[in-house]
């Protein structure tokens, strides 16, 4: 997969890849050239492993937002046997920042919902950078109601910078739309498995994330606020985002330790954007195993387990 937007820390990798490319196309393929290419490829793979084994929280943020990173519809295409997209909230409009529909995964019928970002300038605008308006959350809720009626497990993919912060969103009740989803998801009698696949931005992410199992791709982030927003408020300086990223503990491993994430899904070496198929395979395995774990529970048990799970979250102390 060719990707132009290489992050700063990936530059050394990019340079080796350029060399490999040059060797491939500029010379005839002698055994020496082939050997040289193999050597460079090994060097590249080692370098990727090196870089990705010690990413800083800020670097993870950049990978999570990588413009070549697979998005919800990419995973849907690779993970599910079948997908029939459904549209609209029946109230106002169809919000392209959230997609969803009926799907089948290894024969199992499910409802799938996810934030959707755009790949190019035009599509990014169309998808509003993956930032839903109230109608997006209401569409998600409508699909969850459908899942409830037909006893279908729900799979959600989380990938948003946050809910849209604009006049229209406020006018149409962004806060209520999110709140209603949190409440509705808490009461669902069907299993819900959520996977953070890129950016888990605040309430706009959580609004489709009240799940029995929360999975998180290795180089994703999930946070109460973006590092830039946090820096602007607490450091009074948006450029301190790198510091904020480290303080917020947004990475998958840290969130697993905090009891927020149930399972970290490993990504291919160098991140999901380097190998969609491998990333999807890894995610699919985790999704299927999670669904299997939940399949024996009754609706009441599912609801109760989800309540207990979120009820436990948080750290405080009691006593004088």
């Amino acid at each position, binding site marked *: 997969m060719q990707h132009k937007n290489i992050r700063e820390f990936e530059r050394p990798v990019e340079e080796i890849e350029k060399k490999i490319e040059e060797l491939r196309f500029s010379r005839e393929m002698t055994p020496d050239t082939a050997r040289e290419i193999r050597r460079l490829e090994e060097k590249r793979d080692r370098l990727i492993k090196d870089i990705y084994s010690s990413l800083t929280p800020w670097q993870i943020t950049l990978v999570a937002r990588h413009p070549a990173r697979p998005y919800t519809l990419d995973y849907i295409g690779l993970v599910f046997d079948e997908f029939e997209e459904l549209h609209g909230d029946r109230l106002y409009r169809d919000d392209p920042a959230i997609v969803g529909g009926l799907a089948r995964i290894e024969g199992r019928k499910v409802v799938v919902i996810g934030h959707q970002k755009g790949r190019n300038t035009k599509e990014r605008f169309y998808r509003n950078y993956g930032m839903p308006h109230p109608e997006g959350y209401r569409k998600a809720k409508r699909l969850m109601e459908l899942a409830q009626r037909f006893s279908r497990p729900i799979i959600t993919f989380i990938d948003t910078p946050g809910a849209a912060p604009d006049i229209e969103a406020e006018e149409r009740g962004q806060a209520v739309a999110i709140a209603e989803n*949190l409440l*509705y998801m808490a009461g669902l009698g069907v299993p819900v498995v959520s996977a953070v696949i890129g950016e888990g931005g605040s309430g706009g992410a959580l609004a489709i994330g009240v799940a029995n199992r929360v999975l998180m791709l290795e180089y994703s982030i999930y946070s109460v606020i973006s590092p830039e927003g946090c820096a602007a408020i607490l450091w009074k300086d948006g450029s301190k985002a790198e510091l904020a990223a480290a303080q917020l503990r*947004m990475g998958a491993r840290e969130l697993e330790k905090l009891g927020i994430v149930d399972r970290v899904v490993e990504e291919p070496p160098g991140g999901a954007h380097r190998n969609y198929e491998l990333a999807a395979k890894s995610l699919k395995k985790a999704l299927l195993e999670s669904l299997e774990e939940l399949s024996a529970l009754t609706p009441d048990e599912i609801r109760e387990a989800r309540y207990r799970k979120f009820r436990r979250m948080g750290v405080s102390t009691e006593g004088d």
Partner: protein
Amino acid sequence: MIWFKKDIFSRGKEKTVRVPQGLWVKCNHCNEIIYRKEVERNSEVCPKCNYHFRISARRRIEITLDEGSFVEHDGNISPVDALGFRDMKRYTERIGAAQQKAGLKDAIVCGEGTIEDRRLLLGVFEFSFMGGSMGSVVGEKIARLFERAMEERVPVVIFASSGGARMQEGILSLVQMAKTSAAIERIRRKAIPYISVLTDPTTGGVTASFATLADVIIAEPRALIGFAGPRVIEETIRQKLPEGFQRAEYLLEHGMIDMIVERKKMRHTLAKLIELLTD
């Protein structure tokens, strides 16, 4: 103060003075200089322009409940710096300073009392405590409030004033939105009244969770209520926001709240609503 059965504000006594020294106060809205006693007598509302001053949790309880009826619950739950968070200050320092200033352990006071002799469970945000932000303690206390309401079948009233989730607790504060909403999901199955009063300001994760999930949503006049803060929106859309945007009157017009109630009439309105919702 004497009317508190359990004196919750004894910590940091000198901080319990609810208004800075001086006999006169300037109204934030009409800029009139007013005799402070007059504002106090008027439930902390400007007698000239009806501006509702922001008030402490303690003062709110005082003017809302029947005298002497309040008993605090869960007053000993304290925040923990689970992330080791440090911005320009350590979170632990911020907690310490806020506790000193407010005389509370965190940004909400919960308990029970009566309004016109009707028993209810009450939660009141303290905005001066880190902007009334919701972290683990606030989430825990709200969850317990609803769980208690379920057990005892008592109505719940929450007065919100909050900037949203508490950043210093990272994701732990975000998930309090789910935790509190889940608690309401359960109480909804039991037909126990829950009334939310949105006061100036209520934004972010608090608006987007329990505060807008009530059976009846009330706002105080001119209270700022929204999901995103006005500054964030202005930065996003790069234009000035229209006058009155995100104010209580705007929300009423757009169908987001049930009514706007003046502070003077709040007690009686709450009593009436609870009575109409109770068998």
